[in-house]
């Protein structure tokens, strides 16, 4: 189990398109991946879950992964956040 905190860097926040990107990426790994924001925890392989987190610009999210490929999973998700989901 590893955890890493990230910040939403794109202006629009996590709307449908970034959420789809996150789910696509997360689904490539077998590990169980969760996003935590404030007191809410949701499954990172669920689009509606991620959208309902309501993660706006500059909000911080903790990515937690548990499973064999946990490190690769967190690494590629963090990269998505760092690249601002290819938005501004």
């Amino acid at each position, binding site marked *: 189990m590893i955890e890493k905190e990230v910040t939403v860097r794109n202006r629009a926040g996590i709307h449908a398109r970034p959420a789809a990107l996150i789910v696509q990426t997360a689904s490539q790994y077998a590990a169980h991946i969760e996003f935590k924001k404030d007191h809410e925890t949701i499954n990172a392989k*669920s689009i509606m879950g991620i959208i309902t987190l309501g993660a706006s610009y500059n909000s911080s999210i903790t990515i937690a992964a548990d499973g064999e490929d946990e490190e690769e999973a967190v690494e590629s998700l963090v990269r998505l956040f760092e690249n601002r989901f290819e938005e501004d």
Partner: protein
Amino acid sequence: MEEQFTVLDLLDLDLKEHNDLGLTCVGGRQGLLRAITTPDLNRPGLALNGFFDNFGSDRLQIFGRGEHAFVDKLTREGVLDNIQELFSRDIPACIFTHGLAPPAEFQSIADEAGCPILQTELVTSEFVMRLIRALGNVFAARETIHATLVEVFGIGVLILGDSGVGKSETALELIERGHRLVADDAVEVRRVAGNILLGQGANPALGHHMEIRGLGIINITHLFGVGSIRDDKQIQLICQLEVWDSQKAYDRIGAEERTLEILGVATPYLEIPVKPGRNIPIIIETAAMNERLKKMGYYSAREFNQNIMRWLDSENARKAYLQKKGIT
């Protein structure tokens, strides 16, 4: 990291009709961000009389007609020590019922202390009941679960399962068959009134949407009408969908009751194996109806087994009788 519940949040609670608190802020606005940390309430009669032992300073202070009349008397007589002492205790807020307004001296002490004064038109007993109910919900134990919640024949069915096992597709067919969607993908479960599990969408502001692979995000309210949705529902049955595992022994009789605990509340629990050709929505519909039968005291599997035992008994008796007569 739990979010703080402030006095402003209390004013913002979206409660309707018989739950409405009817609160407005009439003073001490700078204190609206004070946190409410407990669902308990206090009537400050003793404190106003100068007795502060065991004073519940972390509670909302409710001023009914009696307290209001007493505050009125104190301010008319110019005795303000106890009121000042009261506000020095960092109470979260004062609430006046019956639409009563506090005297100006009381107001200015509250303003100085930065303690919000709220007012409601409701009578004290009704208001206190509603407030306890509302705060009970706010402070209820809660958990967000990756699942889908539907109401099937009046039974709240929580569908669990890994991503891609077909929770949303199952729910979609149930909706198509006239049942109702409560929440898809992210269900917020709260434990209220002791042992009731109440489920609702994790973000009610976003409405009832579903994600169906191949279709994308669809709006259930618009597609199927308002009759096909519900805001919240008690969870009465849990169905775990899982890919059929031929090594695993699934329940074939259903005579023993299995339960799953969520937030410490045990709820009837079924494991439903999924494979092509198995119509899961119909199985869930049947499970819901069976659950209703059980609530009425009729257990299909148990009743069936009793019939078999009765039949075996009578068969034994018949054999014994025939043997005795030497007719075998």
